[in-house]
């Protein structure tokens, strides 16, 4: 009997307890080869990708494309931050924009009112967001799933309402005239300049995310996500580690917010609402929960798709919605799931869909 690759993958995916050991051996051998291939390719591929991304705005020469690309990078940073919370530790956070807002407003206030340089405002922004994370996290992180989602949603709303109503934060008008980022004698003023700044931030966040994922901390987070009770039997202090994840996310969120304020010169409450939080969650979920590459791809999708669909004018959000539904049907585990891309599986799915579309009766090959 010959067994094709996709059949093998399916067998693994449905987890048939009775499947023979030989099949598993074959799968694990192929997985080992995958790992070897990846090790040799990942480094150079990354270097090339970053290099291409770095020269990209100079090639396209249009401010519009660069500006969209910069927004994609900002979303990437936020998605990598939320990935700690949702992806690694498995807690649904629907108020992530709160930390984005804390970063942006702390930087805005310190730089406009007190004339602090932007770089110097990052540390206090991180400090304030950590205080926020601990303040909200300590009493609530013992809650599970839906309850936590409601609490974080509330936190997001509270922060947005605070900045919307306080006169010190400029109320609905927000803060304007945030000075440009200065690094030594270098002053970043152009969109291209900020594009490069955020590119560096993405690379740093990426490096941290992947380091942490393969450390004791990352393993503890994933264990909690997979099975909280069992994680305790490993000696993992679950509540403390959940708080760490929430804090790590808040750090990424607030740093991104700080630089966002400087890049856009003006900030206002609508940028930090529930829809922004939801967009970040979508980026993580569409990309593949827990997957670093997935978070990056997901960020690209949620920002770039609505722009690509501008030709549909009024219907563009409808088209965006349909595209998201299609992604969810075709890749329920995300575009790039953490367990690997599974090209074979993707091929299998496409074949199945093609067959279904062609309305041919689907043939089952039973093992």
């Amino acid at each position, binding site marked *: 009997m010959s067994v094709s690759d996709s059949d093998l993958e399916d067998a*693994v*995916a449905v*987890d*048939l*307890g*009775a*499947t023979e*050991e030989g099949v*598993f*051996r074959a*799968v*694990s051998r192929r*997985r*080992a080869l995958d*790992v070897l291939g990846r090790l040799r390719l990942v480094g150079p591929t990354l270097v090339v990708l970053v290099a291409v991304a770095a020269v990209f705005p100079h090639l396209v020469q249009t401010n519009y494309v660069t500006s969209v690309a910069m927004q994609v990078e900002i979303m990437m940073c936020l998605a990598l931050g939320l990935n700690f919370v949702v992806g690694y530790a498995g807690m649904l956070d629907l108020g992530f924009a709160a930390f984005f807002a804390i970063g942006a407003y702390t930087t805005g206030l310190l730089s406009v009112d007190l004339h602090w340089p932007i770089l110097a405002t990052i540390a206090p922004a991180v400090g304030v967001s950590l205080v926020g994370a601990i303040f909200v996290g300590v009493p609530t992180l013992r809650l599970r799933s839906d309850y936590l989602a409601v609490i974080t949603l509330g936190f997001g709303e509270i922060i947005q309402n605070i900045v919307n109503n306080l006169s010190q934060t400029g109320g609905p008008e927000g803060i304007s005239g945030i000075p440009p980022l200065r690094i030594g004698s270098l002053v970043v003023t152009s969109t291209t300049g900020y594009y490069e700044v955020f590119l560096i931030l993405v690379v740093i966040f990426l490096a*941290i995310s992947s*380091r*942490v994922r*393969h*450390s*004791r*901390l990352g*393993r*503890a987070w*994933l*264990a909690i996500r*997979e*099975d909280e*009770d*069992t*994680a*305790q*039997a*490993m*000696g*993992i*202090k*679950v509540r403390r580690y959940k708080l760490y994840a929430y804090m790590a996310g808040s750090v990424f969120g607030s740093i991104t917010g700080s630089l966002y304020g400087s890049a856009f010169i003006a900030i206002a409450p609508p940028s930090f609402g529930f829809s922004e939080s939801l967009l970040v969650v979508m980026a993580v979920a569409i990309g593949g929960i*827990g997957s670093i590459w997935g978070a990056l791809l997901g960020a690209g999708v949620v920002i770039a798709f609505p722009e690509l669909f501008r030709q549909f004018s009024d219907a563009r959000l409808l088209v965006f919605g349909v595209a998201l539904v299609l992604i969810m049907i075709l890749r329920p585990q995300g575009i790039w799931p*953490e*367990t690997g891309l599974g090209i074979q599986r993707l091929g299998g799915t496409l074949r199945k869909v093609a067959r279904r579309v062609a309305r041919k009766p689907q043939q089952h090959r039973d093992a």
Partner: protein
Amino acid sequence: MSPLSVDSLSLRFGGLDALSEVSLGIPDGALYAVIGPNGAGKTSFFNCLTGYYRPSSGSVRLDDLDITGLGASQVAALGIRRTFQNVRVFPKLSARENVLVGAHLRAGTSFVGTLLGTPGLRRRERALAEEAERWLDYVGLAHQAASLAGALPYGMRKRLEVARALIAEPRILLLDEPAAGVSSVERDELAEVIRKTCQGGVTVMMIEHDVELVMQLATTVAVLDHGQLIAEGGPQQVRNDPRVLAAYLGKRRK
């Protein structure tokens, strides 16, 4: 001497006495089996020992330390590790990573070291990864190190749980029905792993329904029925105990 001793432990769920006044001591280096009919309170007993349930009364002591009512992660930190009846591996982690999670309390802790990838931390991580491979080999899963735990067949997941508990270098290992639902070949491999572990100096406590396995391995057997300890002693002695026979086979009507 008993490193782990239980004194009149009771656990009540509403009106139900899951455990009542159970007292026993597990001798150092023992292979201590807990048997009893379904619903006798065996798993509840394990859950009380490992911090998953808080007993209603009574105490659990590890050496001279009262560990009654400690949380599960604290009990684990004291060197008491367990496996679960309904196999609980971390499905989306590889077998190797599952074992590494078991070594949580032994792994490098420096956060800055993690971010910078300092050589010292890398060395420790590498050493730990090698040790994980050794434990996988110990339970016969070396060839599955990179496979996702959730994709492994049932018997392998059970063995993976054992490796995950052992890498923590526990003093006491609690196995909840290690042989349930595994094939006879795997059962023999498992028996071998348990015997090796016990000989290696780990005190093993196991809940098991497979009488043959219990008779073959255990040095001491305790029998629970309706939450009460009805017999304790050597395998042969317990086997012929009239109360045990009654609990398993029913009482003869007179």
